[in-house]
């Protein structure tokens, strides 16, 4: 990940301070992956656009509350994107249900549940490369949340994360970056 504009943790701090330029940087960094994921889970291009936009607006609004697992905001963004996608699908399903009887609606829901469990991995098909490049804990967060359906906070808990641990990792990330810069200068 290109960290020359700051690590995700640093950008998150700037977001919480109301820095819109940080939002622009985070968008440039992660929107392509979020868009590809949304493309897999949404029913239409219009839905994709709405879901992606709402994902980043949600990040802006909740920026002071977000605790990222390791070094990347991407797992959090993908989880929010998935949740917003589900909400959009539920709204569409409610409209369709108006024209269906209860039995067929229940059957449809069961089929959807089965489909969700079966296709969760498939939904990630266009963001596998990005996930593969994540730190191990961030990758594990993606697996737990996006494939196993574990809530983000629960996944963080399962992995034994704490605020202190996150800070330590951010510090480590900075050190890595500094080393990289130094090496480049040599």
């Amino acid at each position: 990940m290109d960290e020359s504009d700051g690590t995700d943790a640093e950008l998150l701090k700037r977001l919480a301070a109301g820095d819109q330029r940080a939002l622009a940087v985070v968008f440039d960094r992660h929107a392509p992956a979020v868009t590809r994921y949304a493309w897999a889970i949404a029913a239409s291009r219009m839905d994709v656009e709405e879901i992606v936009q709402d994902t980043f607006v949600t990040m802006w609004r909740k920026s002071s509350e977000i605790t990222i697992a390791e070094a990347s905001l991407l797992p959090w963004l993908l989880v929010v994107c998935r949740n917003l996608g589900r909400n959009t699908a539920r709204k569409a399903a409610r409209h369709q249900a108006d024209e269906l009887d209860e039995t067929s609606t229940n059957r449809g829901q069961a089929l959807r549940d089965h489909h969700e469990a079966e296709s969760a991995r498939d939904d990630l098909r266009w963001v596998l490369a990005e996930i593969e490049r994540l730190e191990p804990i961030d990758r594990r967060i993606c697996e737990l949340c996006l494939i196993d359906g574990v809530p983000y906070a629960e996944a963080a808990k399962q992995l034994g994360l704490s605020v202190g641990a996150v800070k330590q990792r951010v510090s480590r990330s900075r050190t890595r970056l500094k080393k990289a810069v130094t090496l480049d200068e040599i």
Partner: protein
Amino acid sequence: MRSEPPTGDELTRMLVSMKRNVLEQVGNEPATAKRLSRTDRIVGGVLAGALLAGVAAGAAFVFGLAPLGQYSMDPAATTSPKPVTSPSPTPTPTPTPPPTEEPAAPGMPESRYGLTCESLVDPALVSDLFTTDVAPADPIVTASGVGIAVPRITSIFSVGGTVCEWSNGVAENDQYGWEPEYVGVTVSIVPQPVAGWSERATQYGMPDDRSRCDVPAGDGPVLCAGSQVVGDAWLTVVAHGEPSVIDQPSWQPFYDAILEAVNAAGPAAAPTAPEQVGTPPAEDCEAVLPLDTVRSITGAPDAEPQRAGGGGWSAWAEARQTAGDVGCLWSILDADTAASVDWVNDGRWAFERMLQAGTTSPVELAGLSADDAAVLRCNVDPYGDSCAIDLGVGNDWYNVAGTDRDSAIALAEAVLAQLQR
């Protein structure tokens, strides 16, 4: 979807459009929170469908998803897509008129620190910061050249703070993203409220302490920013421009000189106006514009009043709250904004300065008295048709926005009627 996700130019256009919408949406929080209208989304969807159906590439840009608050005086600019590397939602820069020698206007509160922009910092240090020419600029005029909102820094003046800008004269309003052609630096000094920094500021860890320059990896501006408490002042300094026009080694001497000047200015004089603590409840908006009126004018029976919120905290937000300038908005299903009203108490002076940006046109309103003034600012097609009416009423400035010209006018007339009650 079963189809492959877009790539190349198609993905680029999609990302630029979404980014513009996101920045526009958050840009108005907590200032005015004018989010995408339902109409804009529907139009966007239709256009997206048209694109999928094979309409010429670039249609999304030419007819595009229109963020509220976009403004351009140059219709030709609307046919020129901005490069994807630009985070700015601004369609085109609007050159500002030459800055006035002294941006003081009748009624403008004096700096409670006794600071003037002429004496704040050695002009040589300003020149050193840039490799191109910059000159003193009026920050209200600069920001009013873009968009239809009240410039955020206005409330800093209202609370007796100081805002100074030196720029190359290109219009820019950070509420709408950064303008690639803009080069400049803005210094803001916000006095601490008598009751102490607000709960929101504390919650977000503000005022924070930082001073650094960030260099983009690819295209984009160098952003040098500093924030610090100096005595009872919250100092923020932001400089940006293309990497070739910012002399980064000169940033720290420039910033240090301003720190020294603010420190030397000593504590702020007592406020001259009552200070507001916290954000008033949304119910208070009924006095500004009754809910039934909003629903009737906008044709949105689900519209509900809200106070803007979320998205962190900053010096201008602190000043806006202290000045009691937190506006109202009415949204539908917590998403689409039907209307908004912002104001600057005792801000008629700022209204007059906003006019100097040259982005308004006169408008006649029922109920407007001879001593008052009203002007219209609208988005230019294809950037949507949302509009705002700026009202100079008595000593105050009101900014009333609707999703189109007619609704903005009707809402503004309703606000006038409320003010006369």
